[in-house]
Structure formats: C-alpha cells, structure tokens
C-alpha cells in the first residue's frame, strides 16, 4: 500500500516521535557520517551515501555488558542487565544495511534465539531510504539486491526529488506506524507511482551486473585449496577494518572484566582477520593471513549460503573504500567468476573432445 508524504510532514513526524522514543538517524560527527541518536530533525543528513559504520551497531553494539556478577562467601550472584525494551525508530537507513539486518536475523535465530539482539530488533521501527545516487563503491545489485530493496525495512521512503517522498509499507510495524500518523500520509497518484518506478529502473540499470552466485558457490565448493587464494590474500595486513564496518559481519568475543570480587562479562566485536580469533592452546588452524582472507570470502559467499541460503554480503562497498591496502571483495568475486568461466570452457571442451 503506497502513499506519499512531503518533507515537511516527515519533519513534523520526527519532531513528535523524538519526545516519545529514541530516534536514530545519519548525523555528521566531525566529518564522519554515523547513525546516532538525535534530539531534533535538523541534525539529520538526508544526502546520499551510506553511513561510515553500518547500522548493525545499533542492534549488535561494538561492546556491551551481558551480565554483572558478584562473588560473595556464599557463592556468586549474577544480576542480569535491564531489558532492552525502549521503543526506537531508525530513519534514513539504506536498503543494503536494512537487508543486512534481515540476513543477520538468520544466524541470530538459528536454533537458539539471541535475545540481546532480537529484543532490540523487535522494539525498533526501521524507515528505509532508497538510494537515488549510489556511491562509487556500491555494488548491491551484484549481490542480487537493489538500491530500492524492500526486505529489512518496515517502511521504504524514496525521494522523488520534488520535496515529496514515495512511501511503501512493507511490514505490520510499518502499517502500525503509518496508522499512527495517518494524517501526514497522502493518497498517491498513479503518475507519482510511475515516476518512482522510472527512477528505480534508471538507477538500477547503471549499477553493476549481478554475480553468478550459483556458479561462484559451486566453484568455491570445490576450490578451497586453489592457489589463487594466496595471490588474492597477499598484502592483507590482518586489521579488523573490513569486518567492523561490514553490516553482516556478526562474529563476537565474550570476555570477563574483573574488579576485585565483582565484575561483568562483556560481548565485543571480533574479527576473523585477527590471529587470536582461532588460536588454541594446541594449534592454530589459520596461521597465514591469506587463509583468514579466504575465510571471510568463503563465509560470505559459501558458508552462509550453505546454512541460511543467503549471501552474507549486501554490496554496501564499505570494505572496498576503507581497506588500508586496497583489498576489494568485489574484484575477488569477479576474479573467481573469471575462473568459473574458464573452468566451464574446459568442461565444454572436455565434452566436445569425448
């Protein structure tokens, strides 16, 4: 059910919800665009381009205490953290980040429900903003989603350029939110609808072609030991930049911090690029950096597909832009695609030869 909403009405909605619940939006913090809590609507930056850090940190924080404990003579007393039940609204999230949350939900609900993450997800309304002018390093269309992807957002706004936003409701949370502010959402005229579709097609047409995901996966299935991995991974210095900025990287570490007889257990982000990620007393399965580089590519384009039939890469381009030594997962997959093509030729050649 599509509607139309003007920029002014949108600002009025934001002003009213800022009092009642936490509102997060892209904000400029010393030249870096980040998702922060806002107090007023003018803090929001509506301009194009994604935030520097992905929105996952609002649901899966960089570091968070998961419980506190106190050691007494009688034993140990655990006092849990408060419930994450504050109502929150997230505005201006890009479709790739929103879809990344949809992808990460799969692992956080695999057999065991991670209440820490899911409680925050349940209490947050996500109002996505589709990308009319993608950034140079974006490649979401290559990972089979689009700058107008709907999955992951509760409501998807599209800036039609004339101060009006096309708004599409995607989930019940979206309907509830639109219901609450019924008077601001106007009826949509068919030619506005067409305008949005035309805008979407023009933007998507210019974007990179999709990866042949099935071919890539079947190549990855068979080529864990392929020598190309050492070449592709050479030069990676093992910092955590790509994993910490990635919207779908969900690995974490649990550590205790003790002060005398009390303390807390914390959950922090962790990265497969680090050496101590898999280092055990007995042995270290991934000794060289290119093996860890391979793990990241394999996890996103094969293992996640095996377990949850979703790519764990949404093509946001952050890791391409900020890698200190210019590693680029998009070019890695295109290189593998070239490998699959020449392997297909060999197969075809073999067939002909028989």
């Amino acid at each position, binding site marked *: 059910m599509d509607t139309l909403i003007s920029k002014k009405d949108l600002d009025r909605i934001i002003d009213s919800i800022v009092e009642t619940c936490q509102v997060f939006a892209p904000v400029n913090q010393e030249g870096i665009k980040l998702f922060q809590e806002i107090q007023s609507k003018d803090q929001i930056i509506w301009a194009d381009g994604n935030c520097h850090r992905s929105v996952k940190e609002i649901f899966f*924080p960089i*570091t968070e*205490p998961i419980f506190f404990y*106190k050691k007494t003579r009688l034993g140990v007393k655990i006092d849990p953290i408060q419930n994450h039940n504050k109502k929150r609204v997230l505005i201006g999230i890009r479709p790739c980040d929103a879809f990344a949350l949809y992808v990460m939900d799969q692992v956080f609900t695999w057999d065991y429900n991670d209440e820490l993450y899911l409680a925050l997800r349940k209490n947050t309304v996500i109002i996505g903003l589709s990308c009319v002018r993608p950034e140079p390093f974006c490649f979401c269309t290559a990972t089979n989603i689009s700058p107008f992807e709907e999955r992951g957002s509760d409501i998807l706004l599209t800036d039609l350029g004339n101060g009006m936003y096309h708004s599409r409701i995607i989930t019940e949370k979206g309907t509830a939110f639109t219901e609450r502010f019924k008077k601001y959402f106007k009826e949509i005229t068919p030619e506005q609808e067409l305008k949005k579709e035309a805008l979407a097609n023009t933007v998507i047409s210019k974007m990179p072609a999709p990866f042949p995901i099935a071919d890539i996966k079947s190549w990855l299935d068979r080529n864990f030991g392929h020598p190309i991995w050492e070449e592709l991974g050479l030069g990676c210095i093992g910092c955590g930049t790509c994993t910490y900025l990635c919207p779908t990287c969900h690995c974490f570490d649990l550590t205790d911090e003790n*002060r*005398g007889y009390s303390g807390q257990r*914390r959950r922090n982000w962790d990265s497969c690029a680090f050496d101590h990620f898999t280092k055990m007393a007995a042995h270290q399965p991934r000794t060289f950096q290119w093996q860890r580089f391979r793990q990241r590519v394999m996890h996103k384009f094969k293992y996640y597909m095996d377990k949850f039939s979703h790519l764990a890469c949404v093509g946001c381009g952050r890791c391409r832009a900020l890698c200190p030594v210019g590693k680029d997962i998009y070019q890695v997959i295109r290189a593998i695609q070239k490998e699959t093509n020449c392997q297909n030729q060999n197969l075809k050649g073999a067939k002909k030869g028989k």
Partner: protein
Amino acid sequence: MEKTIDQACRSLKDELGKDKEWRPNIIAFLCNWCSYAGADLAGTSRLKYNSNVRLIRVPCSGKVDPLFILRAFADGADGVLVSGCHPGDCHYSTGNYFARRKFALLKRLLEFCGLDERRIHFSWVSAAEGGKWSKVVNETVEAVHKAGPFKGLEPHEGSDKGDKDE
C-alpha cells in the same frame, strides 16, 4: 603483577571509602633496596606520614613498567608515586638511569593526554632517608588532594552502564 595493583587499589578504596569525606588513593612503587628500606626506616623511627598510600615493592625502579602506572590509574588510583635509589646507588648499577628516561618521557606523554601532572610523582629515597620518605609521601598526598578524585577512566554511558562496583 596486574592483580597486585588491582588488589592494592581495591583494598585502599574499601578502607578509604568508609569515612564520608574523600581522601586520595595513592599507589606507590618502591624499589626494594633503597626506597622500601627508607619507608621501613620511617616506620621504625615512628615518623607520622599520611596513611592512604599502598606500597608495592619492585626489585628496582627500572622494573616499573609504564603499564604498571597506567594500570594503577585504570584501577582507580588517584595518584601514583614511584621511588627508587639515587642515581649511582642502584643495586643493579644502572636500573635507575634507564628508569629516569622512561619516567621523563612517560610523564610528558601523560601530561599531553591531559592527566593532571600533580597525580604522578617520582622520587629518589635512599635506605637512610626515612625523613625524606615521609616528607615525599605527605607532599604527594597534598598534591593529589588538590588535584581531586580521578574520574577519568569510567567507561562512558554509550557503551555500557558504568562499572557496577559493590
């Protein structure tokens, strides 16, 4: 060693926490051969000096790693005093010379980060200078008292709801 520093800060905080008015919580690293003996002499000759100091004995002032001092501040000390033998008296002959360079550079790094310079003190106290030791401790406590409680390293609100102490 890091558990010793944590325990020292802890026990001092518990003991000082009892009376209402805040008193500075100081950790002192003393070299075993001169300063520790000097402090011992101060004790045996019944010299009165401020009691809110916890001493940690180290083999030599050269052994005091900047990490010990940073750890002390992180664990809640309001001030740190490091004391060793006078240059030339070192039991290991050159320990305090190397230490002197480390402390000079560490003091400037911490000041550059904005740590109040009244919180960190260095001194040479020989085994015979019981009087000087009590004077040094009183001066240190006085300076740290002026600098006030060290609230610097409480984790900020954003990432966690503060350290839940007892």
